[in-house]
């Protein structure tokens, strides 16, 4: 069984500020971890994914995430946000014998100028 918790339903930051979106996961096997973003009126798009190796993984548009096995976390970060980063961000985990994704409820990011 696997699950994902995104504890923050909404986050508001100022343009140019740093960002961290939290994600905690639970998986009975070594997890595959993903962050997806959904911009208004668009489908979910992959930001980054992780399975093994360097615990800090780089994604598109300056995003990165850090895997922590001890904390069961996969937090998303960005050094300086832009207004265009306003969107809903979903953390997801895949485990077991197939590629089924289990998503968190998402965090809605609002960037104020």
């Amino acid at each position: 069984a696997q699950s994902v918790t995104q504890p923050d339903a909404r986050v508001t930051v100022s343009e140019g500020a740093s960002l961290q979106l939290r994600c905690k996961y639970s998986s009975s096997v070594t997890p595959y971890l993903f962050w997806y973003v959904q911009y208004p009126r668009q489908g979910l798009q992959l930001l980054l994914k992780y399975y093994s190796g360097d615990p800090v993984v780089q994604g598109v548009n300056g995003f990165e995430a850090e895997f922590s096995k001890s904390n069961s976390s996969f937090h998303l970060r960005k050094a300086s946000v832009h207004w265009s980063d306003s969107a809903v961000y979903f953390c997801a985990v895949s485990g077991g014998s197939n590629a089924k994704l289990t998503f968190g409820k998402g965090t809605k990011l609002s960037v104020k100028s």
Partner: protein
Amino acid sequence: DTTVKQNPRYKLARVGKPVNLICSQTMNHDTMYWYQKKPNQAPKLLLFYYDKILNREADTFEKFQSSRPNNSFCSLYIGSAGLEYSAMYLCASSRGGRLDTQYFGPGTRLLVL
């Protein structure tokens, strides 16, 4: 082209009537997925096709049907819509491996009255 298309984008249905949603992709992906997304909830996997094999989630087994007449198309069928079916329905496709990216369509918003 990494586009997944969904038709229609909006669907209004009456309680007790059937609903058929369509998804297409031209990436020659082996696997196609259907998710249900309700406000403030995580996207929930309903079923997926790996090639011609349909896999339905246990808790939605009897509520949704699907067909995949060829590699590019996949439908989601509701035999008798209830109010609880009102949601966004997301289609995705991937090559099927555990770390493979799932590409999502923009979704079909279904409202059952």
